[in-house]
């Protein structure tokens, strides 16, 4: 790691704070991930990525920048990454899954606010995230009020381009969204200095679809009993999907899937076939937020799918690859992205509907709904999710928690009791 210190210093990181962060990560990762038994061998790539989380990938970003390339950061799966890449940029999802720098943050944000928002502000104010510090621009959206207003503040520290995401899905919302995507394209061209062409956009749509297809392949393998891979490992892959090199990542996920297919053929699983099968639903779990999945799988249950933005909402739905013009490609993008069932939409019935289908498809025994504290869209929508589950006779447990560890014991009791109910 020592070779990276100069790079971190050049990026303007607060080295002391950054050291502390790095020291906290490895033990957590070890306890949560490396103690799992019977893991697929091909997880070694993803372990390596985490190990090098502030090293190799950052170096790659720096090399890209030295050659005049630009790095664009995003916070939401609504931002079309295809656009960034078609203009020669690298698009990375900024993580925000860890509480940090709260002292600084509370100077500018209220205490009672969603931990995800607090986290990205903390990373920026504390200068401890090399991804953030590598960004030439970050892209915000008008999804929830907390984020929308926080982006105004963030703009004091780094240039923010805000996309207006609609709150409904009518024809006029689609038109607005299409316009927003085109404006975004112009903004990105402006930053990278490269024009987006029909050919370059087509290529990046193909690449991104390949990434989605690899993740969909992984997801569909998890439908098997016994589950060939743990939910924690799958979540990690879904988290890494947001910032890793697209082509390499796609290849590595496919290699892992090859191994999982062999496992399925030989009946090898990470948990017994009768382990309770859980679908996680709710707010995104940004890296390194593994708290609830770790609690769930430590009881012997297995998570088979994530109905979350770090999960199916990110990779379900492909973009048509056969657009005959740039205009048509933008329209296809707008359509695909507007289909995401995020709780900031009203109404959002498609989400609960999809969840009910997932329970069938993944042979799930129950749903655990997790919302982050102070996240209104998801904690309110939890009521509808609960109602739909009850009507369908699907056991559901609703949890609300943040990034702190104080409530671990209480969460354990709830989760264990829920799993006892399912057995």
């Amino acid at each position: 790691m020592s070779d990276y210190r100069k790079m971190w210093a050049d990026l303007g990181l607060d080295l002391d704070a950054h050291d502390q962060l790095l020291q906290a990560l490895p033990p957590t990762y070890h306890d949560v991930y490396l103690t799992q038994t019977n893991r697929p061998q091909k997880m070694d790539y993803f372990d390596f990525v985490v190990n090098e989380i502030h090293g190799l990938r950052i170096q790659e970003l720096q090399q890209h920048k030295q050659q005049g390339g630009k790095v664009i950061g995003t916070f939401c799966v609504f931002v079309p990454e295809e656009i960034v890449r078609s203009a020669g940029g690298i698009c990375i999802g900024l993580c925000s899954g860890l509480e940090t720098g709260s002292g600084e943050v509370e100077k500018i944000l209220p205490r009672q606010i969603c931990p995800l928002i607090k986290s990205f502000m903390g990373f920026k104010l504390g200068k401890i995230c090399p991804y953030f510090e590598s960004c030439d621009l970050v892209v915000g959206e008008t999804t929830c009020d907390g984020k929308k207003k926080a982006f105004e503040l963030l703009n004091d520290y780094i240039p923010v381009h805000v996309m207006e995401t609609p709150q409904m899905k009518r024809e006029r919302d689609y038109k607005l969204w299409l316009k927003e995507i085109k404006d975004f394209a112009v903004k990105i061209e402006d930053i990278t200095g490269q024009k987006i062409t029909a050919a370059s956009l087509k290529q990046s749509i193909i690449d991104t679809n390949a990434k989605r297809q690899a993740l969909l392949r992984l997801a569909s393998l998890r439908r098997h009993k016994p589950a060939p891979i743990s939910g924690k490992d799958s979540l990690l892959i879904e988290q890494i999907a947001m910032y890793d090199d697209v082509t390499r990542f796609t290849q590595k996920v496919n290699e892992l899937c090859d191994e999982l297919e062999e496992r399925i053929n030989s009946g090898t699983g990470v948990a017994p076939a009768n382990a309770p099968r859980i679908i996680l639903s709710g707010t995104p779990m940004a890296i390194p937020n593994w708290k609830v999945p770790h609690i769930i799988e430590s009881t012997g249950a297995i998570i088979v799918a994530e109905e979350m933005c770090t999960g199916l909402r990110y990779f379900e739905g492909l973009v048509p690859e056969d657009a005959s013009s740039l205009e048509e490609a933008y329209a296809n993008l707008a359509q695909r992205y507007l289909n995401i069932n995020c709780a900031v939409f009203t109404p959002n019935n498609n989400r609960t509907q999809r969840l009910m289908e997932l329970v069938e498809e993944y042979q799930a025994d129950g749903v655990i709904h997790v919302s982050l504290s102070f996240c209104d869209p998801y904690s309110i929508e939890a009521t509808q999710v609960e109602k739909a589950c009850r009507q369908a006779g699907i056991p559901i447990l609703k949890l609300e928690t943040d990034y702190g560890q104080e409530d671990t014991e209480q969460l354990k009791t709830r989760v264990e009791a829920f799993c006892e109910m399912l057995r």
Partner: protein
Amino acid sequence: MRRAGVDIGSRTIAVVVMEEGKIIYSTVVDTGYQPNETAAALLTPFAAPVVATGYGRHAAKASFAREIITEIKAHALGTAYLFPEVRTILDIGGQDTKAILLSPQKAVVDFVMNDKCSAGTGKFLEVMAAALGYDIGEIGPAALAGKPGLKISNMCTVFAESEAISLLHRGTPRQDIALALHQSVAERAASLLKKISFVPPLVFTGGVAQNPCLVKLLSEILSTTVYVPASPQIVGALGAALHCATLI
């Protein structure tokens, strides 16, 4: 064949030992600062297999317990043994409150627990008793003699305490304040029970079930009889012992 159950809670440790389906020994002690050691020492003389429940269950599993179950399941088993007709359980312990709904076959079908804070738990009553100058055993009977009408609006232990103290300064009789505090605990418990659409008969367990004022208020608010076991603090440990009997 002897079977033992232990409930290692935040305030107390309860032990139940059974033989041929009968309780032959039970005890409740303070949790203290070495809960796992205390629990192990209580159990050693019986040389029986143990199932553990409560907050300390995982530590117990790592040292002496054969198996663990959650408090939810333990209370369901223990209560159904004592009251075969039970459909809903309210358990108020030192640091949490739970409401558990059972099927006619006594399987847990739903449950809710209070969130992180201690509002409405045994801890809440303990702090309030101290603020009003009562022993924990005195506050319930004293509240029964209180005059109704007063309302404590805060459920947060810290704020409710300062609300109670400012009422004292204004000369409000302490038993009236005690009654208002019980009222708020009872209402909170009732709202948890409503969340799981409770079905009578209702059994009230946990240390706080020994409080006569709460039992009375709950049955008034819910318009149903509230049944309390003779030793409400051992129900979790009893459930654990019963579960142990099914294992071997």
